[in-house]
C-alpha cells in the first residue's frame, strides 16, 4: 500500500516539480512570483493539443513545437509585463503577472470556448503488475520525460555560458552586470525557460485530467511545492514537488481525502514556522 502510494506520488510529483521549478527559476533571477505559471502550463497543453489533434502532427513534433511556442510566449510575457516594470513597486510586478494569467486564460477560452477536451496519451494507461506494485507506461513515461527535462535543465544551468550568466545574476545582479553579463538578456532567457518548463509540465499533465482553460489552477500546487522546498533553491523546488505529492497522497489515503488540502496547508504553515526558508532554502539575510 505504502509502496503503491509512493509510486503514484512519483508521477504527480514530477508535474508539481516542473511547475515549482518554473516558479523558482523566475523568482531567483528576478525576485518575482510569476502567478501566470499555471496558465503558461495550460497554454502549452492547449497548443500541443491544437498541433496534435487539429493539425495532425506526430506526438513528438507536437510536443517539441508546443514547448518552443511556450518559450516564445515566455519571452513575450517578459517583454510586455515584466521589463517595463523593472523599477516599479514589487506588488505592481506581481499583479502584472496576475493580469497576464487572466489574459491567457480568457484568451484561450474565447478562442476554444469552455470546451472540455481530453488529451490523447502517448503511452498506454493500462496497469502493469511488477513486484507487487502497479505501474502504467503512461506514469513511467511522465517520470522519465520529467527526469530528462530536469537533466537537460541542469546541464544548461551548470555547464553553459548562459547558465553561468543566470547563476551570476541570481547571486548578485549588479556584480553580474559589472563583469559584463547582460542582465536583460538573462531575464529574457529565464522567462523563456520557465515557459518551456511550464509547457512540458502541462503536456505531461494533460492526459491525466480533462483539459480546460481553467486547468491553470494546478499552478497553485506548484507554488505551494516551491514554498515547501524553498523558493530560492532550485533543487529545493524539485524536492518540494515530490514531497508535496507524497504528503497529499498519504494524507488522502490515511486521514481524509476531502480535507486533504486543508491539512496540507497546516503542514505547510508548520514547515514554514520550523524552517521559514523551506526544506532546502538558504537563509535570507538582509543588511540594515
Amino acid at each position, binding site marked *: 500500500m505504502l509502496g503503491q502510494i509512493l509510486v503514484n506520488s512519483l508521477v504527480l510529483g514530477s508535474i508539481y516539480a516542473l511547475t515549482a521549478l518554473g516558479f523558482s527559476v523566475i523568482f531567483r533571477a528576478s525576485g518575482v*512570483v510569476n*502567478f501566470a505559471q499555471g496558465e503558461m502550463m495550460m497554454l502549452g497543453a492547449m497548443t500541443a493539443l491544437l498541433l496534435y489533434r487539429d493539425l495532425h502532427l506526430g506526438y513528438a513534433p507536437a510536443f517539441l513545437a508546443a514547448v518552443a511556442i511556450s518559450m516564445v510566449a515566455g519571452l513575450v510575457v517578459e517583454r*510586455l*509585463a515584466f521589463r*517595463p*516594470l523593472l523599477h*516599479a*513597486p514589487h*506588488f*505592481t510586478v*506581481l*499583479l*502584472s503577472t*496576475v*493580469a*497576464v494569467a*487572466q*489574459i491567457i*486564460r*480568457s*484568451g484561450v*477560452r*474565447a478562442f476554444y470556448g469552455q470546451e472540455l477536451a481530453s488529451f490523447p496519451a502517448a503511452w498506454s494507461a493500462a496497469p502493469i503488475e511488477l513486484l507487487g506494485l502497479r505501474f502504467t507506461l503512461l506514469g513511467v513515461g511522465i517520470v522519465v520525460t520529467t527526469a530528462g527535462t530536469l537533466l537537460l535543465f541542469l546541464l544548461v544551468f551548470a555547464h553553459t555560458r548562459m547558465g553561468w550568466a543566470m547563476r551570476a545574476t541570481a547571486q548578485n545582479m549588479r556584480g553580474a552586470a559589472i563583469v559584463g553579463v547582460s542582465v536583460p538578456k538573462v531575464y529574457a532567457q529565464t522567462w523563456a525557460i520557465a515557459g518551456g518548463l511550464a509547457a512540458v509540465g502541462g503536456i505531461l499533465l494533460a492526459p491525466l485530467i480533462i483539459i480546460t482553460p481553467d486547468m491553470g489552477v494546478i499552478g*497553485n500546487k506548484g*507554488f*505551494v511545492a516551491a*514554498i515547501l522546498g524553498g*523558493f530560492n533553491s532550485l533543487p529545493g523546488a524539485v524536492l518540494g514537488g515530490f514531497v508535496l505529492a507524497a504528503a497529499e497522497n498519504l494524507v488522502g489515503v490515511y486521514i481524509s481525502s*476531502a*480535507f486533504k*488540502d*486543508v491539512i496540507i*496547508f*497546516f503542514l*505547510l*504553515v508548520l514547515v*514554514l*514556522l520550523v524552517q*521559514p526558508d523551506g526544506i532546502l532554502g538558504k537563509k*535570507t539575510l538582509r543588511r*540594515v
Partner: protein
Amino acid sequence: MTKNAARSVWPGYGRLAVGAVAVAAVFSVPLVAGEYVRFVLLMALINVIATTGVNLSMGYCGLVSVGHAGFVAIGAYVTTLLMVQWNVPFPVSLAAGTVAAGIAGVVIGLPALRLSPLYIAMVTFGFGQAVNYVALNWIELTGGPNGMAVPPPTLFDDILSNGAIYAMTAGFCLLTLWVAWNIARSRLGRAFIAIRESEIAAQSMGVKVATYKTIAFGIGALFGGLAGGLYAFASGYVNPDAFVFLVSIMYVTMCVAGGLGTVLGPVIGGILLTLLPELLRPLAEYKEVLSGIVLLAFLVLMPRGLGPLIGAAIGRMTERLARPAQPREPDTA
C-alpha cells in the same frame, strides 16, 4: 508654503464639499438608477470595504495579503450560518461575522510575524485556499459547492428592501473609510508606516513591531469580515465560488490600481475595477481578455496607481486625501 496658506484660508471646506457631493451621489444614484445599476454599485461598495482592509495591512503596514477573500468568506459564512441555524437577528449576525473574521486575522497574523514578507504572502495564500476548501468540503454545515441561501434580513418583522440594504452598505462603507482615515492619521497609522518603511528602524524607535503587525492584520480582517456579511445580504446567496483566490487577487489589484497606502486608493480602485467588467459586458466573450489587457496597461503605465493622479487632478484641496500617507516633513521656512 502657498499650500498651507490656502489651507488656512479654506480650512478644509473644499475637501468637505467634494466629500459631501460624493456621499450625496452614492446615496442618490440608486434612487434614479435601475435595479441592475444599484446592484453593481452595491458590489462596488462592498469591494471598497474589503479593499480598505487589504490596504490597511498591505498598503500601510507592508504585510502582503493574498488571501483576503478568506476573511470575507468567514464573515459571509458566519453571518449566514447564525441566521440560518439559530435565527439570530441580522445585526448580531453581521457583528459576529465581522468579529470572527477579525479573530481569524489575529490568529493568522501570529505565526506570520516570524516570517519574512514573501512568506507572509504564502501563509495568507494558504489560508485563503484552506478557508475555501473547508467551505467546499464541510457539506453538512456550508452546503458545499451548492452554497446556502441567505434569509432576507428583517428588522422589527419587516424585511429590509433592496434600497435599505443599499443604504446600510453605503453607511458601513463610509464608516469604514472614516475609521481608516483616522487610523492613517493616528499613532497607529504612523506605526504601521514605520514598520512598512523599515522594520528594524521602527523597532529601534520603540515601535512594538509584533503588536502592531497583529493589529494591522486584525483590522484588515475585520473589514474583510464586514464586507463578507454585507455581501451575503446583498447577494442573498453564498457559495465558495465567491471567495476564490482570484477574488483575493482582485482586492490587491484594486488596491494597487487605486494607489497603495492611500485612503482614497481603495475607493477609486474598488469602484473602477467593479465597473470595468460591467462596462465591457457588451463585448461578451472578449470581456475578460479586455479587462486583463486594461489592467496590464494600467499597471505598466501607472505603476503607482490612479489615486495620486486623480487626487492631483481634483486639486490641492483634496490632495491630502490621496497622498500616500508618509510622515510629513517638517516645514522649513
